[in-house]
């Protein structure tokens, strides 16, 4: 995978403009006119989409992890909270970790009130994200349909549906026939091993282009003065006598930091251990696979918790299929093939027309699971260290919301009200936010 910042190498550097009396580095604004102008040069002269700076000796805020969440946090720190002395440190390259490995599903139909507020906060930001970032993230609210296969599923889903309605999150119940009408090709034969007995539908849910999300945030943050530093792995933390962090040690040298936000998904335990903090997390591979490109055939997102499969179709035409997690802790980024085979069994039964479709690629991303399948977002035992993790199998949908709430938490030094129920302290207080049934695969 190549980031556009590398594909579109040009002689021109990123442009500069004056904002509020200061010279600001900014990316070229995308508009019909700029597209037209660049069409005359066969689109060869687009500048790099974000700067590639050497890290400065120190920053006000250092974000560890250049995934969607970390980049979004940096963007909102700069755009909404006026904190522009920010660096995002990424050990690999932008879009090379889980942000390039997920199945791009966006929804907010969770069960508990704190979760509904959390995920709907993100969904509302998704709805005008392309305009906000001036970058087409291809958010497509084509509807997320979750299939019920057993009586227990029906009861559980209807409970979710009513809870969602009470929280102002529109959600509908579909009969098998209505589910098939919404998604032609779905097999509703009552003789299936796990027949479709009904489905819930969140019409506002859908998919977005995962690479574009990180590229768009990196570009917008960079334009506001945030340094996006790739190939920079954090190897340790420098601590003062009172325990506060004074700097992060990296493969590109020491970087001073007044405040640090860790947003490292599957590797959060590894990073936090360097600060002497053990986390209530277990990291497992979550697999996905894509087929060869096809004509449009799957018109919405179809998810099935019971038989562990979910499927949507990308705009390029490939079927994007999500499988389950392996049962043990692993950082292998692959996972066992029998997990994938099990998912394909289910897909072939739900969509018999897809039996002869060839699968092109299969991969794994490392997801950090909490016991209640809810994230951890807030303060840590170290005063100037903040953490955003534990999103498990569902982090992509939260990208704008998680970034915004992490930014607010770092800027104010205390948790944003929406993030407050998701603190690290809930494990000792017992106030877990149990989303095992809503979290789809990780239950």
């Amino acid at each position, binding site marked *: 995978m190549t980031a556009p910042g590398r594909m579109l190498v040009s002689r021109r550097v990123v442009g500069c403009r004056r904002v509020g009396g200061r010279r600001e580095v900014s990316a070229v604004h995308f508009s019909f006119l700029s597209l037209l102008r660049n069409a005359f040069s066969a689109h060869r002269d687009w500048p790099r989409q974000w700067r590639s700076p050497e890290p400065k000796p120190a920053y006000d805020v250092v974000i560890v992890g250049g995934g969607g969440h970390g980049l979004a946090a940096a963007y909102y720190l700069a755009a909404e909270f006026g904190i522009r002395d920010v660096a995002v440190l990424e050990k690999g390259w932008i879009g090379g970790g889980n942000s390039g490995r997920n199945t791009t599903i966006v929804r907010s139909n969770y069960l508990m009130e704190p979760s509904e507020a959390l995920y709907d906060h993100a969904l509302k930001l998704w709805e005008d994200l392309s305009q906000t970032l001036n970058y087409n993230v291809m958010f497509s609210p084509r509807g997320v349909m979750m299939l019920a296969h057993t009586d227990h599923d029906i009861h559980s889903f209807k409970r979710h549906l009513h809870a969602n309605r009470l929280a102002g999150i529109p959600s509908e119940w579909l009969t098998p026939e209505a589910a098939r009408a919404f998604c032609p090709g779905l097999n509703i034969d009552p003789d299936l091993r796990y027949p479709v007995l009904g489905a819930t539908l969140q019409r506002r849910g859908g998919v977005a282009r995962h690479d574009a999300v990180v590229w768009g945030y990196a570009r917008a943050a960079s334009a506001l003065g945030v340094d996006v530093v790739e190939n920079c792995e954090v190897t340790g933390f420098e601590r003062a006598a009172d325990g506060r962090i004074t700097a992060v040690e990296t493969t590109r040298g020491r970087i001073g930091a007044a405040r640090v936000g860790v947003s490292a998904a599957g590797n959060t*335990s*590894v990073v936090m251990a360097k600060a002497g903090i*053990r*986390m209530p*997390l277990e990291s497992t591979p979550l697999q996905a696979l894509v087929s060869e490109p096809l004509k449009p055939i799957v018109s919405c997102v179809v998810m099935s918790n019971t038989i562990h499969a979910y499927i949507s179709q990308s705009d390029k035409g490939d079927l994007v299929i999500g499988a389950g997690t392996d*049962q*043990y*802790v692993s*950082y*292998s980024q692959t996972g066992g093939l029998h997990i994938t085979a099990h998912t394909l069994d289910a897909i072939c039964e739900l969509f018999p027309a897809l039996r002869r479709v060839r699968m092109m690629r299969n991969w794994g991303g490392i997801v950090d699971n909490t016991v209640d399948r809810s994230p951890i977002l807030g303060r840590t035992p170290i005063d100037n260290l903040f953490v955003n993790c534990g999103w498990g199998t569902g982090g992509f949908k939260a990208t704008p919301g998680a970034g915004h709430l992490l930014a607010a938490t770092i800027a104010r030094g205390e948790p944003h009200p929406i993030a407050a129920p998701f603190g690290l302290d809930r494990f000792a207080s017992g106030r877990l936010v149990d989303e095992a049934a809503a979290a789809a695969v990780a239950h």
Partner: protein
Amino acid sequence: MLLIACPYCGPRPEIEFVARGEAHVARPAADADPQAIAEALYVRDNTRGLLAERWRHLHGCGRFFNAVRHTVTDKFVTTYRVGDPRPDLAALAEELAR
């Protein structure tokens, strides 16, 4: 699929087993404070490298045992019976690196 050596039955395919999380987690005392109970219940090393963990040969002999596995390669380094002491992970890592 992994090949796992059950200490009682020998090498068997992964689908006969269930993983049961980190090994050697001590149960907290009855009068332990909530923080200590939360640590024992939820907080894990989640190591990137050699990890001692519990497995159960569910679809075989049904017995629990412990294993040391490398969490990046998923390679099982050794398996041992419950009650046996935890192997020296640092020494095992050195041996692997050689």
